[in-house]
């Protein structure tokens, strides 16, 4: 039987990737990991492509056991990661022996944790992506006792006796605050809100329990549109801050329908979307205005961080001859 990962406790988890691109003309949302930075970082840390399938774990505890030696990395929200009962750091590659149990427990402050395996996990693909699409009914949540096929295992690479962590790559970990500040730029319909638009930056919003990968509903002092009349449906970007004529803001995320007719007051930035992917129901959010230039620069800086990390990973992996069939020499923390 092929190497696999046995899921003991699935909680709320699914196999994800960065999304299903290029189908929005047919009305398909992009979907994919809600915190794209953490997902990309997890894959980079184990030497995968950034868009390889990985496990997204939301809120609840998760545990699994690989049938072979694996190298994995856990990123995203702070949690207690243990391997065979021993605490291990997040945001670093971690060697796991065949049969050892990996536990992710006590996810806090943020909503989502990403678990990437060197060699990735196998998952069915639809139109070029394994990302679940709840509206199409494609992909499904993982369940207890599921088995995920592992692309390829790895020889043991930590010290056989001392079990010191091998890696210390030092990823700049994004903040996971109790109260979030989300960057936005002006939206295409901001003029329709007149002076009331400024409320978006003065008010504090509470994320409602009816929030998911499609969008987050937020309660607070909502700006009021001055213009009247219905908006003709048109394409709305991921991150659109919509203001229906109710008491809540609707902030669209990666599962959003590609068209909508509510006025778009602001658009969450690319880096802001990764942060928003971590916001839990009940947490408070403030919005911060950014220019398009500032937002692009911030996103490029984040992608450059990943590029630099990939370089360090490849230097270390080359030194350890990963992947390799002969056990690498035990190494002190690098």
């Amino acid at each position, binding site marked *: 039987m092929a190497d696999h990962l046995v899921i003991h406790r699935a909680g709320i988890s699914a196999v994800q990737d960065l999304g299903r*691109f*290029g189908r*929005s*003309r*047919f*009305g*398909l*949302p*992009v979907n994919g990991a809600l915190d794209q930075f953490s997902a990309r970082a997890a894959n980079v840390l184990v030497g995968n492509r950034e868009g390889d399938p990985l496990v997204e774990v939301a809120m609840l505890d998760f545990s699994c056991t690989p049938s072979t030696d694996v190298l994995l990395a856990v990123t995203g929200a702070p949690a207690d990661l243990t391997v065979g009962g021993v605490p291990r750091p997040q945001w670093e590659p971690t060697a796991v022996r065949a049969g050892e149990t990996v536990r992710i427990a006590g996810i806090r402050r943020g909503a989502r944790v990403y678990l990437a395996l060197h060699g990735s996990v196998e998952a069915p693909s*639809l*139109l070029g992506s394994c990302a679940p*699409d709840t*509206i*199409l*009914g*494609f992909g499904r949540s993982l369940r207890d006792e599921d088995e995920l096929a592992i692309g390829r295992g790895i020889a043991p690479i930590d010290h056989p006796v001392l079990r010191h962590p091998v890696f210390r790559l030092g990823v700049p970990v994004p903040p996971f605050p109790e109260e979030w500040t989300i960057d936005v*730029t002006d*939206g*295409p319909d901001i003029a329709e809100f007149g002076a009331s638009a400024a409320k978006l930056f003065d008010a504090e919003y509470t994320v409602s329990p*009816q929030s998911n990968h*499609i969008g987050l509903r937020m309660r607070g002092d909502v700006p009021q549109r001055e213009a009247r*009349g*219905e*908006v*003709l*449906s*048109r*394409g*709305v*970007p*991921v*991150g*659109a801050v919509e203001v*229906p*004529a*109710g008491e*809540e803001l*609707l902030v669209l995320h990666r599962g*959003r*329908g*590609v*068209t*909508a*007719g*509510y006025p*778009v007051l602001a*658009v*969450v*930035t*690319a880096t802001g979307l990764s942060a928003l992917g971590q916001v839990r129901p009940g947490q408070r959010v403030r919005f911060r205005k950014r220019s*398009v230039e500032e*937002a*692009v620069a911030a*996103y*490029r800086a984040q*992608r450059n961080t990943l590029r630099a990390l990939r370089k360090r990973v490849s230097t270390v992996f080359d030194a350890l001859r990963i992947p390799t069939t002969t056990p690498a020499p035990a190494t002190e923390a690098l």
Partner: protein
Amino acid sequence: MRQHVAILDCGDSAVVVKAVHDDADHRWRAVHALADALEEADLAGVHGLVPTYDSLLVEFDCADTDHRSVRRSLEAALDRLGETPEERPSKLFEVPVVYGGEHGPDLPAVADQLGLTEQDVIDLHSGAELTVRCLGAPVGAPMMDGPAFPAPVARLSSPRTSVPPGSVAVAGKQAVICPMRSPGGWPLLGRTPLRVLDLHSERLAPYRPGDRFRFVPIRPEQWGEHAGAPLGAADG
């Protein structure tokens, strides 16, 4: 066509092209022709095109390209398209619908709002061929010009979290079928028992922008005759 559009930033990862011509049909053909041209050009970093009635959303990865270069590509495509975008081909689809009751819970409210009887609303909605303008949310939904109601229909102030598949809805001056169960803020007039999408097809839906739909009222007890049948063009 450059003089007939405005290109606006839409956040750090998208621009929106708004067609600005006197003729609505010209605006619609322009944004679809432009989307075709961009798809053909296969621009690096551009991963999403959403042409609708009079606007085209272009989504991209702003680490791989930027607003200026996307704008330049758009302008070049507009120049190549010339003055008048082409007519689009058109097929006819006939769609059986059970109006009102559990399948169309907002029919009374819509009639009330428009100052019409429920039967008037049904007659107007099923009495004309409605042209598909784009495929939109949720997944592959055919977005149509709405029927000749006397006024635009207001969206629900709080969107429903779950609308059954096949629901037939209207909002503003638009009409739609919701192909899959999904959240939605449009008032529901009825529901078709047909299966709208084919998930095994690369293009998901049998219809394209430019095709026409005619809704055919059926009685609730006729639901079973059509349940689960695939939607197909009446004229091949």
